[in-house]
């Protein structure tokens, strides 16, 4: 390993990205304007399930400024179908998913027809002139009813609403014992049903796409997390040769998994641009976004925990119903499967069985939302751990301590078959308890209970781990995922010693330009400001697997590190040649090659870069470049963990929940930029708190999305949230040369059960053992009145 001075890594560098973002000089896709560009508007289904008996766009085409109007029938043969890259079982039911509905609509908001016009206003106006007649079909919404015999069907031709059933059984897999025996013979069995309400990722930048056909070349700007995957799949779906498709993800305004998708809108814009031979732009409204961009969560979790009276867990059985919505998106079926490996969490559990059934309903399709399967799993296990604590009469922290993997037991292979790399649950928990003032708050809680205070205090515990750094390609293959999990990085040494870094990751708020610069500055001994990070354009970054699953630093960071080492290795013989010494006598520190024992005699990396540019005097056989590429395929996931504690005051007379103190202690290995990490934790916790308290995508009995605007889908405002206390413990990732894990999803995974556990804890004296999320004042109040919730 190259010895370097660590100057940048670990320092709270202010972000390079900010300069354009705080001055309004940002390139959002919606800001792209091209000569001759046309605007596209989409007519969406107002009904949840219907046959399209008639559609006529001719009147729209007659209107001023309208260039084209067409429906699904007009393009049925050429529009292709949307991809699902994760057929989780061999016999998974995978219905066709046309970008524009052809004969039938299956959820409110499904695209039915489009108008292309010279202005956005003209296109939107003309939608009113498109005629569509619908013949209503029965609407399927309830997951259990959907699986009953004789149920109405979302896809009549499939004969079932079941997409798949996926099973992991530790007895069958050989990773543990059989769970039935454990449950049958258990001293304690706790059985609960938890519901993960449907959420909407609600990134702040609405999705937007511009498709520019020039000759046989298509350039696609899109507000996407996945420019590389989008390029590959647009090519595959439309039959356009891959080298004729360029995808640009310019500045992208948040994703949270919601832009991890190949969308109907992207393909519709592609079809329109191809028909017209003109650039076409589509930008969704927020209402369109909420009803048509994929949703997240929406599961029924039946969970059974077997334990001994001393609190030791002996078995865990999980049965899920996961709402797919009307279609399968890019990784829809796989989202709950990611959770399969996380229900056992940080605990030593001898027997485990997981079964998930994916179910079609007449709703917007679901897919990844921050955490993707892991928040759901963590919620269920951390909720039921509190129930176990009550059942066996232990403090919730103590019952966890009796079951968790100890620091000296890593690496630890779990009952789900994963090998956790490193961690210290005791250290994180001890720190969190200190920061919260746990014992003091327990005393106050007891006082309030004794005095019958109308405002009760509850303390919620959530000890979590997660699997991030998706993922070793072989593991993904074994799970039938359609792609690998490697990542790329390229270093270009410019003649003046400046550095261009090309990454295959695709940031949309994570600050890669800053963090990647810090890593390169240290590894190459160049100035932070002398590094430029290029991403999000398949013309400069032709290969990569993009950003999701907290993978960018955990995987892409290793590729970047390896590329830096290659640059140094290439420069070394050149420096040795200039210094007239043996390369073996050189050491590289602080950007300088020096002869060991002779620190005054050196050549910088910049000297080498200039030498290869001139190439006048290089050693024989040495290629005149320092540039290097690296592709890294991870050997394992990495497993961040932490302990989040929430103290909440619950007003039993109004149902109001006020978070009094929230402590997040996260162990994400070594940290590149603590400022960015803290921001990720803040935002992650906010989204998890929002699931616990505020957000709910609600459908009425006819399949209309009631929470279809920001008036009804209640993202928390600044006034709804409080400051949280953050701290870290540090268990370096053994498989990462920089020791880093991932942090993007940790806060969201940890926080939801912490908050709900706090509310339930506050109301235990009222006979409450669960409250359905979101814990609205009405539900909390009803629970406190003994009315159930």
């Amino acid at each position, binding site marked *: 390993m190259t010895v370097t001075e660590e100057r940048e890594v670990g320092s709270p560098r202010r972000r390079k990205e900010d300069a354009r973002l*705080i001055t309004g000089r940002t390139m959002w896709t919606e800001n792209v304007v091209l000569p001759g560009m046309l605007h596209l508007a989409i007519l969406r289904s107002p009904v949840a399930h219907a046959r399209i008996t008639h559609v006529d766009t001719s009147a729209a085409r007659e209107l001023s400024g309208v260039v084209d109007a067409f429906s699904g029938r007009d393009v049925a043969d050429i529009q292709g179908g949307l991809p699902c890259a994760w057929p989780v079982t061999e016999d998974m039911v995978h219905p066709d998913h046309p970008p524009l509905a052809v004969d039938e609509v299956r959820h409110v908001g499904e695209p039915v027809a489009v108008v292309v016009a010279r202005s956005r206003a003209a296109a939107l106006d003309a939608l009113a002139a498109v005629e569509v007649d619908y013949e209503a079909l029965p609407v399927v919404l309830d997951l259990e009813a959907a699986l009953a015999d004789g149920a109405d069907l979302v896809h009549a031709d499939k004969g079932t609403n079941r997409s798949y059933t996926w099973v992991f059984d530790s007895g069958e897999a050989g990773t543990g014992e059989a769970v039935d025996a454990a449950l049958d013979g258990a001293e304690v069995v706790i059985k609960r049903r938890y519901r993960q309400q449907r959420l909407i990722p609600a990134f702040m930048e609405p999705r937007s796409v511009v498709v520019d056909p020039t000759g046989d070349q298509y350039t696609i700007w899109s507000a996407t997390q996945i420019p590389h995957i989008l390029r590959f799949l647009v090519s595959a779906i439309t039959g356009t040769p891959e080298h004729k498709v360029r995808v640009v993800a310019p500045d992208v305004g948040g994703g949270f998994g919601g832009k991890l998708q190949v969308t109907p809108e992207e393909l519709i814009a592609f079809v329109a641009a191809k028909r017209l031979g003109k650039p076409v732009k589509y930008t969704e409204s927020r209402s369109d976004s909420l009803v048509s961009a994929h949703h997240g969560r929406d599961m029924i979790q039946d969970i059974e925990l077997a334990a001994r009276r001393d609190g030791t867990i002996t078995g865990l059985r999980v049965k899920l119903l996961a709402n797919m919505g009307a279609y399968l998106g890019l990784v829809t079926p796989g989202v709950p499967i990611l959770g399969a490996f996380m229900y056992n969490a940080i605990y030593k559990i001898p027997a485990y069985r997981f079964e998930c059934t994916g179910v079609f309903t007449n709703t917007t399709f679901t897919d990844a939302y921050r955490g993707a399967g892991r928040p759901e799993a963590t919620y269920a296990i951390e909720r039921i751990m509190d129930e176990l604590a009550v059942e066996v009469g232990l403090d919730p922290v103590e019952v966890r301590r009796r079951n968790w993997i100890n620091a000296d037991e890593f690496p630890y292979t779990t009952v789900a078959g994963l090998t956790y790399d490193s961690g210290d649950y005791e250290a994180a928990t001890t720190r969190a308890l200190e*920061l919260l003032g746990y014992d003091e708050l327990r005393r106050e809680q007891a006082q309030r209970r004794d005095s019958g205070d109308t405002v009760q205090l509850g303390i919620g515990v959530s000890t979590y781990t997660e699997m991030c750094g998706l993922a070793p390609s072989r593991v993904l293959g074994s799970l039938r995922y359609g792609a690998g999990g490697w990542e790329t990085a390229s270093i270009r040494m410019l003649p003046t010693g400046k550095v261009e870094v090309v990454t295959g990751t695709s940031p949309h708020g994570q*600050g890669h330009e800053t963090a990647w610069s810090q890593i390169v500055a240290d590894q190459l001994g160049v100035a932070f400001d002398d590094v430029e990070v290029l991403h999000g354009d398949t013309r400069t970054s032709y290969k990569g697997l993009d950003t999701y699953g907290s993978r960018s630093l955990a995987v892409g960071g290793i590729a970047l590190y390896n590329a830096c080492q290659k640059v140094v290795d290439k420069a070394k013989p050149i420096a040795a040649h200039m210094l007239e010494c043996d390369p073996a006598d050189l050491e590289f520190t602080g950007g300088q090659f020096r002869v060991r024992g002779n620190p005054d005699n050196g050549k910088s990396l910049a000297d080498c870069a200039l030498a290869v540019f001139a190439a006048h005097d290089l050693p024989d056989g040495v290629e005149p470049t320092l540039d290097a590429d690296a592709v890294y395929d991870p050997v394992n996931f990495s497993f961040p963990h932490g302990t989040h504690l929430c103290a909440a005051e619950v007003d039993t007379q109004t149902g109001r929940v006020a978070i009094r103190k929230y402590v997040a202690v996260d162990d994400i290995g070594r940290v590149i930029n603590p400022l960015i990490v*803290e921001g990720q934790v803040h935002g992650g916790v906010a989204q998890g708190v929002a699931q616990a308290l505020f957000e709910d995508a609600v459908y009425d009995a006819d399949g209309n999305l009631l929470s279809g605007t920001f008036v009804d889908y209640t993202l928390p405002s600044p006034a709804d*949230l409080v400051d949280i206390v953050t701290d870290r413990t540090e268990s370096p990732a053994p498989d990462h040369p920089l020791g880093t894990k991932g942090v993007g999803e940790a806060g969201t995974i940890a926080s939801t059960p912490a908050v709900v556990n706090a509310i339930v804890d506050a109301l235990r004296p009222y006979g409450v053992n669960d409250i359905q999320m979101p814990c609205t004042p009405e539900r909390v109040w009803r629970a406190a009145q003994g009315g159930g919730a």
Partner: protein
Amino acid sequence: MTRISVTVDGVRYDDDVEPRTLLVHHLREQLGKVGTVVGCDTSNCGACTVLMSDPDGRLVGVKSCSVLAVQADGREITTIEGLAGPGNTLHPVQRAFHERHALQCGFCTPGMIMAAVDLLSENPDPTDDEIREGLEGNLCRCTGYQNIVRAVRDAAAAAREAGTSAEPEPPTVEAVDAATPDGGLPSEGTPDEAVPQPVP
């Protein structure tokens, strides 16, 4: 079409607009002021917030999706693109957002910064709760708002120390030298004090 005259970021623009045109669309599509963005269609998110002069000439924050372009006739407007001072000297609020890592994806940031400027012009010394209440009309999905609150608090302190309230700072020689529109960012030392420490 209606003829309107609007002064945006110090430049007068005379245009014909449809009566139904929203101010934000006028700014973005006719005037090219694409720094101001649209995040919703129900006036909830505040991403489009700009400052507009009231009849007394005082600049107040408005959601430009909730103002018709014709209503802006004769008014002065400041957008995120006109907030920096001469020579691209960052406004104290812009500077504080950078220092405090008060943005991630940055989409809400133009509106959030303009709303914060508006808030500080009304209340130069807000408490944290007053900041949270004052920015209630602006949504951010990335930050959880904690660093935004810190930034606004810092900007208020900086403005009070400089005695400038929320007005843009006068240009410094250093800032005038900054040649690019992105110039004026503070140089980076090792500002450990900006790493938020846990509250015991």
